[in-house]
């Protein structure tokens, strides 16, 4: 079966949930054919608002709709939402605590043909630093769809990070999922790989390579970047004494930073971060090859694991 893009799974799920909860409204910035909020728009034209290419005002209009009792999902490109509209998100969503859901599409380097202007490799750092923000990053298409009802019913601002592409499928639809509770996808005692988003499937592949070499890696899927599941991290650090983080994001400010912050306070152990090492990634022809070239390969995770295990000794 062809792998479904995360954005398509999200778009279909949003449209489906619109029938369940009539308070759901959606907004977009002339990108509904890209974010695939157009599934929602087609079914509920009265509850869909296209404000043109104007992300800051979309955030503010959504805040107003939330003040009026609705649950707005705003749709756009993660790069623009998390940068150009960040002040609106900070002031009118987080500080004012309006019930706005930010569906940030084309995240990471998934828009590989458009390149660095469209890549979003700092968005998690930007939104994670905002008080009152919950940050959720699905690992595959099934999970992206599963988040929609939970995010809709959660009381408060949520940043839901959506890839333009598919990712290695790892979840069955409807798998248990809860904001703030990481999932253990593989048991192991030699180290723990803490992965998020598209790097989850790649980390699972890396764990299998490592197992062939006799290294048993535990794999945690840290789908909620904020609030971080500190308890499961502490347990993993205590039991495996070595950590690798893996994310499709700059190594500054994202998952690696969050995990390091947490464990330095509770259980400092050797840690290696797999991510984009603070550069603007180039344009590519193919996402898989681009990710490999940008330091996000399966092998990069496996190598980091070997290094961190060596540092234990």
């Amino acid at each position, binding site marked *: 079966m062809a792998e479904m893009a995360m954005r398509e799974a999200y778009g279909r799920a949003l449209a489906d949930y619109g029938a369940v909860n009539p308070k759901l*409204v959606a907004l977009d910035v002339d990108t509904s054919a890209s974010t695939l909020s157009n599934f929602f728009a087609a079914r509920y034209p*009265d*509850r869909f*608002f296209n*404000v*043109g290419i*104007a992300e*800051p*005002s979309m955030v*503010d*209009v*959504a*805040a*107003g*709709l*939330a*003040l*009026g*009792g*609705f649950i*707005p999902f705003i749709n756009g490109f993660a790069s623009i939402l998390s940068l150009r509209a960040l*002040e*609106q998100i900070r*002031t*009118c969503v987080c*500080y*004012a*605590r309006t019930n706005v859901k930010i569906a940030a599409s084309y995240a990471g380097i998934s828009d590989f043909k458009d390149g660095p202007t469209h890549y979003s490799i700092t968005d998690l750092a930007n939104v994670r630093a905002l008080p009152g923000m919950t940050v959720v990053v699905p690992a595959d298409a099934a999970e992206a769809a599963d988040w929609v009802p939970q995010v809709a019913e959660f009381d408060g601002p949520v940043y839901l990070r959506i890839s333009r592409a598919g990712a290695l499928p790892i979840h069955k639809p409807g798998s248990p999922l809860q904001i703030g509770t990481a999932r253990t996808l593989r048991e192991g005692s030699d180290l723990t790989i803490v992965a998020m988003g598209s790097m989850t499937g790649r980390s699972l592949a890396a764990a299998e390579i490592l197992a062939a070499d006799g290294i048993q890696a535990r794999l945690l899927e840290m789908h909620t970047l904020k609030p971080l599941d500190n308890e499961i991290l502490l347990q993993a650090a205590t039991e495996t004494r070595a950590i690798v983080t893996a994310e499709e994001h700059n190594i500054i400010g994202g998952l690696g930073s969050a995990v390091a912050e947490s464990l330095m306070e509770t259980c400092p152990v050797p840690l290696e971060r797999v991510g984009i090492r603070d550069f603007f990634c180039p344009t590519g022809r193919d996402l898989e090859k681009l990710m490999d070239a940008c330091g996000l390969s399966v092998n990069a995770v496996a190598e980091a694991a070997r290094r961190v295990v060596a540092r234990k000794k």
Partner: protein
Amino acid sequence: MNSLTPQRILELEEIARHLRVDSLQFIHRRGSGHPGGALSAAEIMAALYFEVMRIDATHPDWENRDRFILSKGHASAVLYAALTRRGFYPVSEMESWGEIECPHQGHPDRLKTPGVDMTSGLLGHGVAVGAGLALAARLQKHDFLTYVLLVDGESQGGIIWEGAAVAAKYRLSNLTCILDYNDVQLDGPVHEVMPLEPIAEKWRAYRWHVLEIDGHDIRQVVEGLSFAAQVHEKPTILIARTTKGRGVSFMENNSFWHGNVPNSDQLRQALVELGEVNHG
């Protein structure tokens, strides 16, 4: 159309005077605040909170109340004055304004102060948030109206016009903005820092209904707001010509008083000019 008796006009003028006095006293006591823009908006706030808006101070979260957004959030003193005078909370609460435990922030915070419908402070948000509220009212078939008080300087930024476009596209006749056009901003006259003219033509070009009024003539303010409520298929903006620091001679048209605090002697002189205390 709201028709005001001469007696009612006198009452509203007296309320506006009280809002000026309260604002200056709040700012003086706190040692911080923005007097100039509070004074320029006194008649507008008196008209909204004491004549036009459908509100109930005993039920600040009433679902079908009219909404107000102070897009020029730095003029918080005049909003707090209106809410205290209207009975949303006792004036004694304002004595602690600025203290860490005080429910009233420097700029309005909807989660802390009863009667504040939207948090504000950084300029530019009012029109777009107001458009969202007006859309919500329409979707729910509620007949509440949304009012937004803007200041001239913030119209220099682009997001005001993004919001204006949204309100026009969706024909939000239940949204009314008031532009407090006092022509003074922090660095000097608005017409020198970054001219806005022809401001009425700009709003008309955005497909808004535009009324130009004297923002210190309480009859014009009330009638303008009442007329706006009758406009169909379009949002309305009242371009209210005002004087920054209005009512206090040494503050009028002086950008120094955008964000400076009167000392005790200055406060006393101001209160004399506002008819609150006698000479001597």
